C-alpha cells in the first residue's frame, strides 16, 4: 500500500537550491563569453553561485532582510572580483566604493567603444558582476518566493540573449541547452510545490514522490532537451542574423524622415 510521502521541506529546498545554482551557473557561463579568457568567466561563475546561495539561504527570511544580505554580498563580490586591491582582507572599504563609483561612470562609454569579447576592464567587469548578481537574485525571488518560474527566467535569459547578440561567433547551442536544463529544473521544482498544495501525497516509491516524479521528469526533460538541441537542424533560419539590429549606433542607421520637403 502506498503511504503518505509528501516531499519533505528539506528535499524541496534541496531541489530549489540545485535549480537556483544550476540556473546561476548556466547564466554565468553563457554571459562570461563576452569577456576574453576563462578566468573572468570563472570569477563570474563564483559570483553567480554566491548570489544564488545567499538567496536560498535567506529564502525563509523576509524579502527586505534577504535583499540587504544580498546587497552586502554584492559589495563583497565587487570588491573581490573587480577591485581586489581596494579591499581590507576581502571586505570592501571606502576606496572600493570610490573606485566602484568612478568605474560606474565609465560603463556607458566603455560599452560603446569595446567590442565583444572584451578585456575584463574595471567598468565592464563591474557592470557584469552587478547585472549577473541582480539577475540571479531576482530570478530566485520571482521563481521561488513569488512562485512565478517563467517570470524568474526572464532576467537571466536576458543576459544569455545579450551575450549572443554582441558576440559574432559560431552558433553554440551548448549554453542554451545548459540554460534550458536549469530552466526545466526550476519549472519542475515549482510544479512539485504546486502538486503538493493539492493535498496529501501518497506514494509507494522508496524515495518518495520526488524520486518517482523525478524519473518521469528526467525523461520528459531529456526529450525536450533533445528536441531543443536538434532544433538547429530542423528549424529553418536557426542562428540567422537579428531581424532588428540593436547593435548599430543610432546615428549610423538608415532613417527616413517623414517630413521631407519635396521641392523643385
Amino acid at each position, binding site marked *: 500500500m502506498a503511504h503518505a510521502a509528501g516531499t519533505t521541506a528539506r528535499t524541496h529546498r534541496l531541489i530549489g537550491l540545485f535549480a537556483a545554482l544550476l540556473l546561476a551557473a548556466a547564466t554565468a557561463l553563457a554571459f562570461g563569453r563576452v569577456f576574453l579568457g576563462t578566468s573572468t568567466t570563472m570569477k563570474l561563475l563564483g559570483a553567480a553561485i554566491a548570489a544564488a546561495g545567499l538567496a536560498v539561504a535567506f529564502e525563509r527570511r523576509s524579502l527586505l532582510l534577504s535583499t540587504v544580505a544580498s546587497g552586502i554580498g554584492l559589495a563583497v563580490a565587487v570588491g573581490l572580483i573587480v577591485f581586489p586591491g581596494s579591499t581590507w582582507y576581502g571586505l570592501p572599504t571606502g576606496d572600493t566604493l570610490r573606485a566602484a563609483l568612478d568605474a560606474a561612470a565609465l560603463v556607458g562609454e566603455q560599452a560603446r567603444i569595446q567590442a565583444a569579447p572584451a578585456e575584463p576592464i574595471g567598468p565592464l567587469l563591474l557592470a557584469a558582476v552587478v547585472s549577473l548578481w541582480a539577475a540571479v537574485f531576482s530570478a530566485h525571488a520571482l521563481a521561488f518566493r513569488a512562485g512565478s518560474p517563467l517570470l524568474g527566467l526572464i532576467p537571466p535569459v536576458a543576459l544569455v*540573449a545579450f551575450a549572443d547578440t554582441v558576440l559574432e561567433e559560431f552558433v553554440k547551442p551548448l549554453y542554451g541547452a545548459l540554460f534550458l536544463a536549469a530552466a*526545466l529544473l526550476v519549472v519542475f521544482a515549482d510544479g512539485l510545490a504546486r502538486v503538493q498544495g*493539492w493535498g496529501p501525497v501518497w506514494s509507494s516509491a522508496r524515495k518518495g514522490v520526488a524520486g518517482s516524479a523525478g524519473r518521469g521528469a528526467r525523461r520528459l526533460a531529456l526529450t525536450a532537451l533533445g528536441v531543443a538541441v536538434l532544433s*538547429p537542424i530542423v*528549424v529553418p533560419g536557426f542562428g540567422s542574423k537579428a531581424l532588428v539590429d540593436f547593435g548599430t549606433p543610432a546615428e549610423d542607421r538608415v532613417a527616413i524622415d517623414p517630413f521631407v520637403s519635396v521641392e523643385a
Partner: protein
Amino acid sequence: MLAGRGVTVFVTGLAMWVAARLLGSPGLEVVAIGIAALPLLAAFAAKRGARHILVRRRLSDVRVTPGSRVTVTLDLENRSPIATSFLLLEDRLPTPLGRAARLVIGAIREGVHEQASYTLVPQSRGRYLLGPLVVDVSDPFALTRLRLEFPDRDELLVTPEVEDLGAAPDPSSGPSFGASRARQLFRTGEEYYTMRQYQEGDDLRRIHWPSVARTGELMIRQDESSRRASGLVFFDTRAAGLGRTHTPAFERGVSVAASVGVLLAHHGFVLRLGTTDLPAAALSEERFLDALTGISHAEVRSIGPALAHMRSGSSPDTSLVFVSAPPVPAELGSLIRAGAGFGQKLAVLIYPTDPDRLPPERQAQIEGRASQARLSLARAGWDVIVLPPSMRLQERWHTPLERPLARIV
C-alpha cells in the same frame, strides 16, 4: 488538456522564440524551443499514462454512528502501457461531511496497484453518497490536466445516536430507577398473563395445580413471554413541533426514538415505527434505525390524522413511546384518547428550544405547556419524561422524580 500553467509555458516559449529571432540569439532560441516543446511532450505522456486507470472506493464500514471514524480506501490500478505521473484525486463528499477529499498519488508503474486512504468523521445522522471521484492526470511538471471521472458512488449510513438505556444508572440518581422504568415499559416478560386449559404439547411444568384442584381440569399459566408483545415508537416529525431536520430538538427526538426503539428490540418486542406522515409499520431493528437515519421533518400542521391512525392500531399488549414537543392543550385530548388503547405508554417531550435560552415570558409559556401536558398524561396513565434538546435521555431515564404524579394517582 494543457492546464493553464502549461499554456503559459507554451506561450512563453513562443514569445522567447520570437524574441530570439528578433535579437538573433541562438542560445535563447534553443531555450525557447525546449520550453515550448515541454508542455506538448508532457501532454502526450499524460495522455498515454491515463489510458487505463481504474479506481475503486471501499469504506471500512457502511453503517456507523455519529462521531465514528470511517476510513475510505481508494484502490488504483494502472493498466496503461507506461507509468503514470501525478494523479490528483478529488472524492466529492456531501456538504455535512466536509469538503471534497483531495489526495495526490505519486507515479504508479504500469500494471501496479496502489492504495490511498482518507478518513471521515461524520457528526450527524443521514444517508450520504460519497463520490463521484475525479482524477486529474498530470505530469511531473504539472503542466497538464487530463480529467477522468468515475461516477460510482457509495452510500454511507450514519445512524442516529443510540443511547445505552440499559446501562447501570448513575449512582447519584438513585440505585435502580432505570431498571424500574424499563420494567414499567416492558411489563411483559416472565409475568403472569392468563390461565387457560392444557393443550397437547404444553410444558408440563407450567401446570397450575391450585387451578386444577379448583376446576378439575388441567390448567396451565400462560405468561407474556410466550406471546410476542410489540412496541410502537411514534415520532412527531412536524416542523411546527420539534423544528426542522438537523435542528437540535429534532435530532434529539430522533436519538430518543432510536434509543428507546433499540431497547424495545433488545427486549424482544416487535418494533413498529410511526411518524406524522407515515403510518406505523413493523421493522427489524436494523431497518428501524435505517428509517430513522433518513427521517426528515414534515410540513403538516395537525397531528390529528396521525393520532387517529395510531389509535386504530392500538392493543393492550402494545407499548407506546410517543416522542414529540410538549403538545398544545388542544392536542392533549386526542393524544390521551389515542393512547388509551395501548398497554404501557411513555411520552418523551422535548422542548423545541432550551428554555434557559428563552426570554422569561416565553420560557414560562413553554414550561407551563410541558407541565400541563405532563399532568394530563400522567393522570391518563402515561409515563412522562421532559427533556431540553441539549440533554441526553440517559440523564432522565434513571431519574425517579420524572413521574411523581403518576405515582400519586
